[in-house]
């Protein structure tokens, strides 16, 4: 556990915030990886989504809440289907939430987001809630989560 995790887990909203930011960073880094691997810019993505470049900047910096609908649109624009899993097993084993090595290493240089580790997870479940509610929902039922694309 890092110092920030150790300290924030003691505060009222710290646990929730750690879970939220883990998910946000996991998702946005994967989107950035696809953009980079496909040689696409934020402007290209903005055009495909029919939105402004500044909106894409806000979404990819995590400063604007991304809904599941927006995530699906991004997946559609990039030709990569997002998948969401709740990882109960990982929660028990790691004693922590969110970002896992499996979730972040899957995107490396292949351009295909097929998370092999996800197949090994037990108790996974597809969810349909809005993205900004993921972390809260997951925490309330004691589940960490992964969002992957393929």
């Amino acid at each position, binding site marked *: 556990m890092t110092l920030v995790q150790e300290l924030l887990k003691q505060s009222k909203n710290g646990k929730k915030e750690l879970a939220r930011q883990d998910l946000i*960073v996991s998702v946005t880094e994967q989107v950035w990886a696809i953009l980079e691997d496909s040689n696409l810019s934020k402007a290209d993505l903005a055009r495909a989504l029919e939105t402004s470049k500044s909106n894409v900047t806000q979404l990819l910096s995590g*400063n604007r809440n991304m809904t599941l609908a927006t995530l699906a649109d991004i997946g559609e624009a990039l030709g990569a289907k997002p998948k969401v899993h709740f990882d109960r097993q990982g929660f028990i084993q790691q004693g922590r939430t969110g*970002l896992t090595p499996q979730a972040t*290493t899957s995107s490396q240089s292949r351009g295909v987001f097929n998370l092999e580790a996800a197949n090994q997870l037990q108790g996974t479940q597809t969810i349909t809630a809005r993205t900004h509610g993921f972390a809260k929902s997951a925490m309330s039922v004691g589940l960490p989560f992964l969002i992957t694309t393929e």
Partner: protein
Amino acid sequence: LLIKLNIKVNIELNSMPTVYHEGASRTILITADGEQSIRALVAVHSKEIETGLARADALIRTLAETGQLRSPDQWRKEGDGFWAIRAKQIRFYGWYEPGSIFVVSHVICKRHQKLSEADKSRMLKNQAEYRNSKKRD
């Protein structure tokens, strides 16, 4: 003389960087100044600061696990071999060392985009202390 020696040893031990996170690709170390700055920021009890710290922490663990950060808006070269992880108003400043090591110098909450002279001096001081401690090893 013994007391002086003891104080000196304690000061040197206290200034030795500690492991912040051991990832699959990189080890993140943090200086004593870095640890103190995080504790000071958490003590402010601001939601905005907590959000920034949590996001910067997730980013730095991603750096440790994957060896790189993709988001150019949150990972910036500050010149002279220094880097900044930027999450909201939070900045984690640091530099690379041989052996897949990234050392966090210190952490601040700021509104300005560019690295200030004060932060650069603070980072140079922490870097010199780190490298001197490595020479002594």
